[in-house]
């Protein structure tokens, strides 16, 4: 039990009296892929926002590696190794693909605040950046401008950028949304690959992806945890079926 990487206790968030997240106890074990699913508006994205401090919790605590991080700010949390992706793709559109990844590498390399040094000094990060791009099959686009990438590639790039942070814990919000089928497979593979050495928490509506990837699933509904467990267990839970999965005879 001591290999919990992330633990929340009684985590809640109210918006003007509306409880978007209420009393969530989330326990994520190190080295697993943990999926959070639930109907729309259940509070999944809000939960992510709380974990990364994009929103301040109304109450409750968050522990990361046993340390209380409830009062840290967004930047501090990211620097401790919790990095997220966004539900809507988040890239730096006017930078090149390579630069996108490099920006993420800069901070750790200590090449971020030096306004007196030349840009040339950044080239020593190029190799590492290229390696990451290769991992997500984007190496051939290294010098392309990011705006022109197709949607699926932007998501891949986002993952590469997130990886560049070498996070201990990655939070992925709907990594496959809006992707065509072949892209979904690629991304699924990619997540599996990067999960080897880290912990992943993800929100996903594509049950196919969830079932193939996740070790544990937390089902949320109306801000609270409805069920938790491995896919086989959760997917047979009648409450979950009713609230989320629906009748399996799929239209």
């Amino acid at each position: 039990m001591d290999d919990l990487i992330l633990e929340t206790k009684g985590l809640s968030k109210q918006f003007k009296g509306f409880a978007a997240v209420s009393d969530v106890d989330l326990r994520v074990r190190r080295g697993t892929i943990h999926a959070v699913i639930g109907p729309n508006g259940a509070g999944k994205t809000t939960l992510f926002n709380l974990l990364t401090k994009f929103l301040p919790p109304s109450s409750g605590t968050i522990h990361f590696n046993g340390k209380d991080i409830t009062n840290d700010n967004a930047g501090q949390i990211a620097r401790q190794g919790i990095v997220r992706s966004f539900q809507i793709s988040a890239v730096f559109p006017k930078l090149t693909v390579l630069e996108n990844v490099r920006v993420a590498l800069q901070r750790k390399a200590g090449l971020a605040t030096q306004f007196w040094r030349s840009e040339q000094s950044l080239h020593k990060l190029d190799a590492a950046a290229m390696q990451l791009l290769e991992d997500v099959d984007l190496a051939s686009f290294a010098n392309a401008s990011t705006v022109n990438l197709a949607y699926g590639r932007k998501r891949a790039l986002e993952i590469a950028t997130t990886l560049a942070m070498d996070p201990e814990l990655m939070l992925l919000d709907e990594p496959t949304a809006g992707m065509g089928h072949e892209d979904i497979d690629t991304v699924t593979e990619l997540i599996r690959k990067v999960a080897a050495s880290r912990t992943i928490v993800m929100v996903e509506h594509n049950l196919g992806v969830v079932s193939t990837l996740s070790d544990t699933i937390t089902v949320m509904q109306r801000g609270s945890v409805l069920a938790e467990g491995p896919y086989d267990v959760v997917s047979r839970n009648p409450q979950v079926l009713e609230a989320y999965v629906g009748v399996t005879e799929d239209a």
Partner: protein
Amino acid sequence: MNLPTQEAPSTRARLRGPAIGLLLLLGLLAPLVVYPVFMMKIYCFGLFASAFNLLFGFAGLMSFGHAAFLGSAAYVCGYAVKSLGFPPELGILAGTGAAALLGFVVGRLAIRREGIYFSMVTLALAQMVYFIALQAPFTGSEDGIQGIPRGRLLGFIDLDNTYAMYYFVLAIFVFGFYAVYRIVHSPFGQVLKAIRENEPRAISLGYDVQRYKLVTFVLSAGLAGLAGATKTLVFQLVTLTDVHWSTSGEAVLMTLVGGLGTIFGPFVGAVVIVSLEHHLAGLGSWVTLIMGLIFMACVLMFREGIVGTSKSFWQRRKTLPAIPPETPVIAKA
């Protein structure tokens, strides 16, 4: 593994050296043909606009109160040199430092807001600086500080000699200009660009965005101050015009005319606007009208400014089919 070869920039990089050398040479020879004080004014305003451009063009923060930094540095430098007997180089340092300090204070307050609100906060704070300049005992109210001696640089170069002064100002300008270039093309500049493109993402990558904005703000204020302090020595006077909001507007105009977010744009803009101001002076009351029309024409037709427009024209000629001109999108409103 094949590292990306940066093809396009390399030809430009090869041309850059000689081009800059040529410009420098022109700068060195200019006083032989152009009236030196006029050139010095251009350098001061060019630097001022560049400082503004650093903040707006590269960090997306549209300051409407940059005159506060230009002006406060000018007052501090003027007072230090005239009343405290500082040598010129220390006067300029004092002015620049004061502006940077003021930039720190204003920046702290302003960067908490975004878009048009940011602009308004800077404007409001600048109005307060104006108010102080009007009321404070050492600023001379609307008469300003007049008859400021230029003094001797490092104790032996007599700056009353126009040429000595000219090369001194040129040196400061080149330094300031290089500083902007360096900042923009540095690891810091790269992060800045990222922040401007997608702030939440930059935060999630662990960057303390507020700090980057603040540093940029302080740098920009300091450079504006450098321009202001230098200007004080050139004209030997400081007045309320230097802290008035219309002077902030002038920085915007120059930057826009020259090309927002380009390195050379603000300088080109300063050349154009300062020259116009002088050459149209004989036209009397039509000056404001003509300036207004130029302003409108720039916004409607040449939004990328002179440098931006010629750049994309150049690119379009080289790379067919044409790339649609991309209008700079600045702050998130």
